[in-house]
């Protein structure tokens, strides 16, 4: 029974059953979902309380894990400390080294001596030493510590060593209180972690005093530490039925889409057999297209599925286009669409290529469809040109409709969206180029010639025609997308690859690899070109950006910052807490606002209830930008906004505002915020990198340092960005520019003898003309090799992966021939040094860039120290802080001074005041300088993902020792050649070189091994008895001698073979004649005796003559029979040559013979309608015959040979069909004659012997047809009744 069912659902049908199963699941989930929803709704009250308990337990478990890890680390540190602090080997140096082990990087560790002094610390200091002692929690009790910017989970413990009590505290950061919009910021939030894990909204109050709120919509519980003390209050929104239901519905629809997609996918294998049976390939392709199109539609309708699976890649900000109704509205949609297009393109390419190549030796024009062919040509030409335009338009869209800056990626291998878009554009290029190649193949197939030279001349003519038409096509367009030069390059590359496919190696699977390389070079060039266009357009965007930043917008920003801050509970309560760091609070308020998001020069100031400033964070705004306290009014309920006009800079105004902070209707303080627009800030030059918004990265199409910007107010220069201060004459072209009706103009500006492309935008503000001009050096907007390689590296990774795939796919057909060995040797010899060189160069550049940074820091520290020393020498009484401040003002270099391990001075004090940086010296630097007596030390440090280097140097000032530190977080040090620059150049050049090496190695190894391959093939043929062979080699080296020698040898062997056969036959005849004579003599003697006896009996007239006659006659007749027998045997013996008869399978023999020609360009197909075709015959002779046929076909320039075998009632029918040049009409009758040949060195025995052999099998051989399109031979071999009864 089971077997029956299994049998039934085997084959294609089993998929069909699965399809039905999934469709059923689709409907079933549709039916079941409402039931589940109803069920949940009915039991909601019961299940919600279970859910709440589950959530509470999960939170506790997640917290326990953090707690455990902290305890574990605490225990480890304690053990280590016991050893290190034992009096015998106690050194604080070792202590610092110990806790700065990278293993503890995640934690903040501080160790206090019994007197409460901090003796060792690691890079981040969570709790200032004065806050550790006296202990706020008993030793070993876990608690949360609220630092200014981060909340830590912390534990402080004691170690008693020989009556001395040391303290140590270990802290794990749990929650950041600030949020920055920078590329470096790493968010950290326990609350968010819980929200995303448990899918309800959480709030955590990290305080043991937090009280539960009386709110029915939320649930609160206390978080207890290991000693069951309350350390925090966790609240979360009670799960809502509505949310639960909508979650389940969305999951259900996700599953439904998944079921439908799987069902649809399985349709293909279900109908694979039916699909295979379709004869017309074009119908097959059309069906496949429809299938894929419907599949695409299905995937398109399942929008949420991809959002769920790959949320990053469905983000339309990376790329989206309205083209094709949204089929390319995100990187992942683009990928799916282009993948389907590629599949169809490949199918069309394969179909058209095989069709055109099959007929390339025939003359289609002679066959009556000349008309159709010619009609299609102009149409194809137009298609060709528009397809190139379509490719250009698509690549342009990839550049313009994307925020990905492909050429500005900070890493060699870009992030996932950029990587996918690179793949997409490559696939798009390949799919369009495949069709373009098909069109060129059509054109190349117009003219049929076997002559290489003629073909190349024809191709050249075609190439010139295409180039001319391509040129005019571009010139005639009102808005051409590309330049004639790019069009020339594209058409040239397409011709090269098409000629390779059509003429040189039509059957090589590696053609696809060459197509991918061509596509990559074309698309990367196009991307590079359109990126330049985008850079030009960015001049306009920059002007727009300057125009956008106006007072209205700033008023909006200030307004929303003040509203948000005054409503924030944490901000409000800060006013009540003692010892609040209001600088840090100002920074926190600023960090979450649009002022940070847009990196504007701005400040946030906190006032207390008496209107006295108690904290501020100021980024690039002068102290006078702060709102005077006289404006503050506690009665204001909404933000009050003012404009401060700076008289020194006429059009620049500062927007400032304040809001009172009220708690229970009592004003506890004020928050004020200010913002200014400054052209200087455009490139974020005034903002330290770690605070610079990533908006800049997103928008920076062009390197802002390259821009020169001037703004004018009533024809006077008001602001300047860049290092050129123009004279009035120089800016005249801007003021006199011919503005379009949209008040914009593109002009060329000459500054300092160089030409600048300039965009000018005019606008009217309060009746005054405002002009913004944005210029860039024209030569900076040109095609660069750097940019080309930047993308080529990424695409070459895909190409190499594809090459490896092709190699593996083709591995069955790959044999370790001389050619393969040669190729591998070439590749190893050439790639290995290239890779080594690249790696070595990279390390050199890496070292040099480190050296450049350290040199930059060294120089700066030297300037500062020299400046300080010269001041000390001149002014003995001047206080050190004044001296330091002078140095900062005069040198413009940022630095810090430490006394011991504590900071004494910093030029960027506010970043230390806000607690972004530690005021304690870097422990590693301290270790080397203080304990190991290094004079200076450079350490690498990081703030989230921002990495910077700091130089620490020991200095003596007024006989006291200090440490000065200079870093490149505050001092921008530009390296002439960064590691990424080096990477792009090295790996770009080398990947290009590697691909060139692969191409050239293949060509060279092919060329070198070609005569060897021919010789090997010829030797094999001789081994199989086919002597009718002659090789032709064009080379003039030893190879020529070898081949000539081989040809001579083959001819000699053939001659000797014939002579030997002749001799053997002669000898055999002689021997036989002797035998025959002997054999004939034997019966003759009895016959003679019998006749004599008969004569005697007749003469004696014997009575019994009758019986004697009868007896003797019998004897004579017997002897005559003997003679007859001898004659027959003689006749049989004369049938030369001797055969070795055995049972053979004709199909097997055909296959073996064909295998000898695997390396030939000619493709041999075997069409066998039957599995076995057995006869009793000599296999050697059969194979010799087949080899002869194949060789004749190859010599007649066939590209394809089809050998088909079928079986009828009477016999096996073998058809040998080729597409060679055919047999001339006059020779057709003579082909089977002995010594008839058309070949120069042929003996004319091949077909004669074939006929003899087939006739020896009582079969028949004939020439079925022959024309210019090819020749077909028919062989009939009768079925053996013993084998086929």
């Amino acid at each position, binding site marked *: 029974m089971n077997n029956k069912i299994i049998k039934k659902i085997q084959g294609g049908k089993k998929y069909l059953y699965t399809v039905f199963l999934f469709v059923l699941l689709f409907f079933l989930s549709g039916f079941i979902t409402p039931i589940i929803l109803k069920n949940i709704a009915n039991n909601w009250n019961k299940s919600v309380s279970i859910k709440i308990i589950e959530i509470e337990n999960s939170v506790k478990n997640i917290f326990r894990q953090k707690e455990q890890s902290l305890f574990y680390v605490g225990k480890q540190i304690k053990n280590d400390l016991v050893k290190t602090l034992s009096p015998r080997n106690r050194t604080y140096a070792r202590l610092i080294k110990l806790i700065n082990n990278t293993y503890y990087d995640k934690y903040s560790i501080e160790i206090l001596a019994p007197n409460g002094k901090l003796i060792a610390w690691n890079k981040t200091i969570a709790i200032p030493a004065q806050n550790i002692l006296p202990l706020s929690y008993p030793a070993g009790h876990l608690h949360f510590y609220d630092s200014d910017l981060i909340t830590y989970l912390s534990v402080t413990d004691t170690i008693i060593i020989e009556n001395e009590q040391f303290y140590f505290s270990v802290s794990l950061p749990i929650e950041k209180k600030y949020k920055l*919009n920078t590329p470096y910021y790493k968010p950290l939030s326990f609350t968010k972690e819980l929200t995303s894990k448990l899918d*309800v*909204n959480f709030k955590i109050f990290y305080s043991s005093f937090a009280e539960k709120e009386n709110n029915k919509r939320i649930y609160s519980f206390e978080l207890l530490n290991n000693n069951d003390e309350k350390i925090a209050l966790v609240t979360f*929104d009670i799960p809502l039925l509505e*949310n639960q239901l909508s979650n389940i519905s969305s999951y259900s629809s996700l599953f439904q889409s998944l079921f439908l997609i799987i069902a649809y996918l399985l349709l293909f294998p279900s109908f694979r057999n039916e699909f295979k049976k379709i004869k*017309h*390939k*074009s119908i097959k392709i*059309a069906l496949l*297209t429809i299938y894929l199109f419907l599949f695409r539609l299905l995937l398109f309708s399942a929008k949420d599925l991809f959002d769920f699976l790959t949320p990053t890649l469905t*983000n*339309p*900000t990376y*790329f*989206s286009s*309205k*083209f094709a109704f949204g089929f390319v*509205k*995100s990187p992942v949609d683009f990928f799916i669409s282009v993948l389907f*297009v590629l599949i*169809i393109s490949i199918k*069309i390419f394969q179909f058209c290529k095989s069709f055109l190549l099959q*007929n390339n030796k025939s003359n289609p024009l002679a066959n*009556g*469809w000349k008309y*159709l*062919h010619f009609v*299609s040509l102009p*149409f194809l030409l137009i*298609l060709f040109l*528009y*397809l190139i*335009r*379509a490719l250009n*338009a*698509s690549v342009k869209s990839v550049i*313009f*409709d*994307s*925020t990905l800056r492909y050429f500005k990626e900070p890493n060699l291998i870009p992030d996932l969206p950029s990587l996918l878009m690179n793949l997409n554009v490559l696939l798009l290029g390949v799919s369009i180029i495949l*069709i373009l190649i098909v069109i060129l193949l059509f054109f190349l197939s117009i003219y049929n010639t076997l002559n290489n030279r003629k073909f190349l001349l024809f191709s050249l003519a075609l190439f010139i025609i295409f180039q001319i038409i391509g040129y005019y096509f571009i010139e005639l367009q*009102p*808005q051409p997308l590309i330049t004639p030069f790019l069009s020339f390059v594209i058409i040239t590359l397409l011709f090269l690859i098409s000629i390779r496919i059509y003429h040189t190696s039509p059957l090589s699977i590696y053609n696809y690899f060459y197509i991918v390389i061509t596509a990559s070079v074309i698309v990367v060039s196009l991307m590079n070109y359109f990126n330049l266009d985008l850079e030009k357009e960015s001049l306009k*965007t920059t002007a*727009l950006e300057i*125009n*956008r930043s*106006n007072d*209205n*917008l700033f008023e*909006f920003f200030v307004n929303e910052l003040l509203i948000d801050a005054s409503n924030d509970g944490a901000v409000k309560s800060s006013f009540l807490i003692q010892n609040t760091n209001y600088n840090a609070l100002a920074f926190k308020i600023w960090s979450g606002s*649009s002022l940070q*998001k*847009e990196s504007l020069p701005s400040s946030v100031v906190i006032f207390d209830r008496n209107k006295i400033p108690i904290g501020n964070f100021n980024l690039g705004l002068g102290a006078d930008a702060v709102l005077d306290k006289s404006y503050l009014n506690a009665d204001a309920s909404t933000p009050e906004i003012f404009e401060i006009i700076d008289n020194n800079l006429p059009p620049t105004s500062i927007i400032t505002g304040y809001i009172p902070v009220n708690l229970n209707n009592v004003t506890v303080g004020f928050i004020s915020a200010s913002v200014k627009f400054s052209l200087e800030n455009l490139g974020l030059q005034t903002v330290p990198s770690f605070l610079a918004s990533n*908006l800049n990265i*997103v*928008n920076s199409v062009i390197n802002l340092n390259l821009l020169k910007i001037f703004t004018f107010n009533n024809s006077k220069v008001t602001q300047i960005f860049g290092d050129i201060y123009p004279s009035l004459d120089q800016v005249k072209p801007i003021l006199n520019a011919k503005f379009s*009706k*949209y008040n914009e103009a593109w002009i060329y500006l000459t500054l300092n003898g160089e030409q600048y492309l300039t965009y000018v935008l005019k606008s*009217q503000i309060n009746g005054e003309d405002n002009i913004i001009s944005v210029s860039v050096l024209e030569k900076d907007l040109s095609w660069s090799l750097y940019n080309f390689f930047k993308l080529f590296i990424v695409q070459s990774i895909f190409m190499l992966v594809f090459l490896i795939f092709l190699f593996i796919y083709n591995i069955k057909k790959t044999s370790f021939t001389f050619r393969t060995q040669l190729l591998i040797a070439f590749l190893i010899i050439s790639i290995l040094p290239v890779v080594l060189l690249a790696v070595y160069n990279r390390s050199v550049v890496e070292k040099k860039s480190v050296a450049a940074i350290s040199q930059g820091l060294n120089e700066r520290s030297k300037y500062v120290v020299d400046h300080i020393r010269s001041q000390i020498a001149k002014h003995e009484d001047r206080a050190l802080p004044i001296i330091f401040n002078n140095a900062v003002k005069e040198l413009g270099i940022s630095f810090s001074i430490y006394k011991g391990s504590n900071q004494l001075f910093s030029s960027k004090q506010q970043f230390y005041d806000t607690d972004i940086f530690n005021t304690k010296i870097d422990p590693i630097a301290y270790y080397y300088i203080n304990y190991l007596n290094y004079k200076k030390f450079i350490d690498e440090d990081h703030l989230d993902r921002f990495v910077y280097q700091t130089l620490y140097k020991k200095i003596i000032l007024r006989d006291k020792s200090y440490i000065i530190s200079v870093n490149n977080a505050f001092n921008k040090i530009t390296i002439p050649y960064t590691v990424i620059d080096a990477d792009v150049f090295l790996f770009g050049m080398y990947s290009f070189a590697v691909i060139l090496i692969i191409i050239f190695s293949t060509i060279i190894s092919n060329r070198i091994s070609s005569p060897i391959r021919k010789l090997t093939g010829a030797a094999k043929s001789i081994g199989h008895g086919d002597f009718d062979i002659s090789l032709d080699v064009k080379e003039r080296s030893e190879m020529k001698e070898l081949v000539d020698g081989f040809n001579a040898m083959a001819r000699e062997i053939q001659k000797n073979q014939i002579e030997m056969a002749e001799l053997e036959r002669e000898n055999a005849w002689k021997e036989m004649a002797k035998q025959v004579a002997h054999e004939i003599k034997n019966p003759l003697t009895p016959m003679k005796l019998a006749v004599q006896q008969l004569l005697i009996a007749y003469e004696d007239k014997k009575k019994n003559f009758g019986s004697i006659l009868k007896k003797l006659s019998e004897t004579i007749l017997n002897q005559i029979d003997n003679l007859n027998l001898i004659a027959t045997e003689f006749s049989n013996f004369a049938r030369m040559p001797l055969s070795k008869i055995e049972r053979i399978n004709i199909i097997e023999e055909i296959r073996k013979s064909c295998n000898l020609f695997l390396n030939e360009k000619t493709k041999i197909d075997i069409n066998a309608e039957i599995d076995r075709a057995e006869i009793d015959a000599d296999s050697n002779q059969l194979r010799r015959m087949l080899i002869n046929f194949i060789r004749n076909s190859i010599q007649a320039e066939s590209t394809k040979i089809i050998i088909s075998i079928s079986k009828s009632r009477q016999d096996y029918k073998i058809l040998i069909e080729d597409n060679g040049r055919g047999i001339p009409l006059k020779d057709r009758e003579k082909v089977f004659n002995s010594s008839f040949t058309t070949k120069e060195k042929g003996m004319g025995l091949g077909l004669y012997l074939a006929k003899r052999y087939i006739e020896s099998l009582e079969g028949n051989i004939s020439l079925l047809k022959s024309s210019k399109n090819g020749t077909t031979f028919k062989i009939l071999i009768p079925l053996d009744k013993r084998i086929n009864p």
Partner: protein
Amino acid sequence: MKVMKLFNLIILFLFLIFLGAGNSFGQLKSNYLNKEKGTRITTRLNKLKQIQEIQRQKLSIIEFRNIERAIAQGDIAQLSRYFNSRTYLNLTNGVSGYYSNNQVYYVLKKYFRKHKVKSFKFDKIYTDANTPYAVGSYDFNTHDGRRSLRVYVSLKRVKNEWKILQITLN
């Protein structure tokens, strides 16, 4: 037989044109339409020339009301009429910067789908500025109830039409 094959090929190429060349043909078509619009603009411009500058600024109120309606209905197609070739977006989901016309369409579409609008209204519309702008509030539902975002939209005259210079949802 071979004639049949060639017919197949031609059918295939027709099919190809339909599939692949759609892009370039699409572009041609849009160029043609733009030209047509261009002539329409000229006539409108002639009429506009007679209107006072301030009145022209006031016209932007109508545009703001249209934009308000489009956002309130989550109708991106309607809103997309106001997109410039580059529009500045600043949204709560981290989107900030200049986006092309094509991108703004899908970026906002996705954003409005995730933050389904409950109500939207411009509280203040300022038309007397160089770049007229409006400030409003955008209410939508989330896991934990209704939330409100502040919206800032500013317009600019580009090619004699009011285009959105920037949309900020904070």
